[in-house]
């Protein structure tokens, strides 16, 4: 495939933004600036970006508890996100949602989801709306390897096939659901074969390779846009951090994370490829790194300065449109 420099720069910038955002979340969490519990997606950036880069604001994604990367890839404002994750009144959800429920309807981001398997049925709905209203939009849902065993996800697959919904199911297989191995919890030999048996095209891709992942996503998205129905993509990837920030990760092998960071970093791979192919210069990438770092600094700064919600006005509002 031929990639325009502009596309490559955009992909890199988004991946880098996610990485920097997530790494900063860890820092701010440890400083006590982020309440609650937070799941970061560092290491999985290529999947989020490959899945979302061809989508526009009117396409819809449904995300997971590990949703920051999906948000950023879908175009959510990182300053608004950081404010939200810090529980500020001017956050994307006025501080009412937080990391696990961050959403931005205007950007077609139908919410993180703290319920494993909560998203795919909802993305079916967005796809159904697109199909019924003939908008040409598509929906895409994210889920982990663990989510694949949730009944809601399995029935959502069948439902999408029956109605030929323009819905791309993305399963990010990072090998773990909390501290349980994907290979233990998925009884099937292959998640992709199991997905395919539901009657939709299913593929498995190396989610560390942005380009391979992008090509698979593109086929599925184009297919959905042409009205040919759903697809399921399993993207093999690596979670650089614990399940949540602070997870001691005793269930992982010694050195596993270090090795992964060294050898399976999708950002490094991207950089190597685009410079080796002569598509982009190192300097352009470095410039992006610097710009992203500044953006994240600004996001944190603004978030820390942002007002906190006021219980007197904010606790009881937004439950209903009218009541």
């Amino acid at each position, binding site marked *: 495939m031929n990639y325009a420099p502009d596309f490559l720069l955009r992909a890199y910038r988004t991946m880098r933004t996610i990485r920097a955002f997530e790494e900063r979340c860890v820092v701010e969490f440890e400083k006590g600036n982020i309440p609650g519990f937070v799941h970061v997606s560092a290491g999985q950036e290529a999947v989020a970006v490959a899945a979302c880069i061809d989508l526009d604001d009117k396409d819809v994604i449904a995300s997971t508890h590990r949703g920051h990367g999906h948000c950023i890839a879908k175009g959510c404002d990182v300053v608004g996100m950081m404010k939200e994750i810090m529980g500020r009144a001017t956050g994307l959800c006025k501080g009412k949602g937080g990391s696990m429920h961050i959403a931005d309807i205007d950007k077609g981001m139908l919410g993180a989801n*703290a319920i494993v398997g909560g998203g795919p049925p909802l993305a079916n709905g967005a796809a159904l709306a697109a199909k019924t*209203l003939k908008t040409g939009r598509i929906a895409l849902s994210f889920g982990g390897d663990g989510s694949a065993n949730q009944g809601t996800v399995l029935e*959502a697959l069948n*439902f999408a096939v029956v109605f030929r919904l323009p819905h791309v199911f993305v399963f990010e297989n990072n090998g773990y659901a909390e501290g349980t191995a994907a290979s233990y919890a998925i009884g099937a030999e292959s998640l992709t074969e199991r997905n395919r048996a539901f009657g939709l095209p299913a593929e498995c891709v190396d989610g560390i390779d942005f380009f391979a992942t992008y090509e698979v996503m593109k086929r599925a998205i184009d297919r959905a846009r042409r009205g040919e129905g759903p697809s399921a993509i399993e993207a093999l990837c690596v979670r650089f951090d614990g399940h949540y920030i602070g997870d001691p990760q005793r269930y992982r092998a010694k050195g596993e994370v270090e090795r992964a960071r060294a050898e399976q970093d999708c950002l490094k791979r991207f950089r190597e490829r685009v410079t080796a192919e002569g598509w982009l210069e190192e300097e352009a990438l470095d410039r992006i790194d610097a710009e992203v770092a500044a953006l994240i600094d600004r996001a944190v700064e603004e978030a820390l300065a942002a007002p906190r919600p006021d219980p007197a006005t904010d606790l009881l509002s937004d439950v*209903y449109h009218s009541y």
Partner: protein
Amino acid sequence: MFSESRTTHPGGKSSVKTYREALNEALRQEMRRDPTVIVLGEEVSGGAGCPGERDAYGGVFGVTKGLLPEFGAERVLDTPISESAIVGAAAGAANNGLRPVAELMFFDFIGVCFDQIFNQAAKFRYMFGGKSRTPMVLRATVGAGFRAGAQHSNMLHPIVTHIPGLKVVLPATPYDAKGLLIQAIRDEDPVIFLEHKLLYDLKGEVPDEPYAIPFGEAAFHREGDDVTIVAISAMLHKALAAADELAKEGISCDLIDPRTTSPLDEEAILESVEVTGRLVVVDEGNPRCGLAADIAALVAERAFHALRAPVRTVTAPHTPVPFAPELEDAYIPSVEKIVAAVREVLEA
């Protein structure tokens, strides 16, 4: 006769319709008016993929009959038996330009899709800081009396009334059925719309034109100052019979049907008790953390000084719904039990 309420019903012609027909008309008229209204669920038309006729059922109780022929399979979707997928599809579609009316057939099936209702649809707006709109209706049949046993006869309205973000509607008359369903479809929030299976054949005068009954407005079915009776859904009719029987003895009941349990017309109940000083709440649901307790507590907290006797609740017992007719009949609150409760609060 229309139920009296603060809502004035529309002018124009009216005719006698069953509760089923009233619901069907509401769906039909709203689907004509608004192309974004769709219907989905199991057997909402029936016959999908089959060698025989389509629209073979039109819903297991016939409420959605005729919609498929008029509006087509793009707007009337027969689904697999996948309730989480049904509710999720409705919630997701509602956030993306449709106004889905999903059917759960029996509300007892809530157990396989409750997450999509209470953690997703109900909470979107709040979690998303007010930016989401989820104009969906979830229709289902409730209630005992059909000899359908423990898994097809529950009320379960307290469970959804408990959940912030949901609106909960239980029409008791054909008039209310049409007006409340139209409101439910036009409403911007997720609405749980519960039809009592014993009411589908109930007849009443229903305006032919579309009209919407606002939520949170009780209907006043009898006026009186001896005692306030609050009854909803099929229990309204038991309470009406009880009130009529008591009227013969000169006991006059203020009979209120809240029609929606969330929002609840608290003022109507409190104002009535201010006058009568006595309250009997009739509800077919189970008693613990139920609707009758909810209303009793409201009054004990907010109209205590008006109360001249203990509140009395008349509910199903704390048991599943039994199958045998004798048991099921004893399970459902009866006219006699309501009459006895009224006498008790008058004597107290």
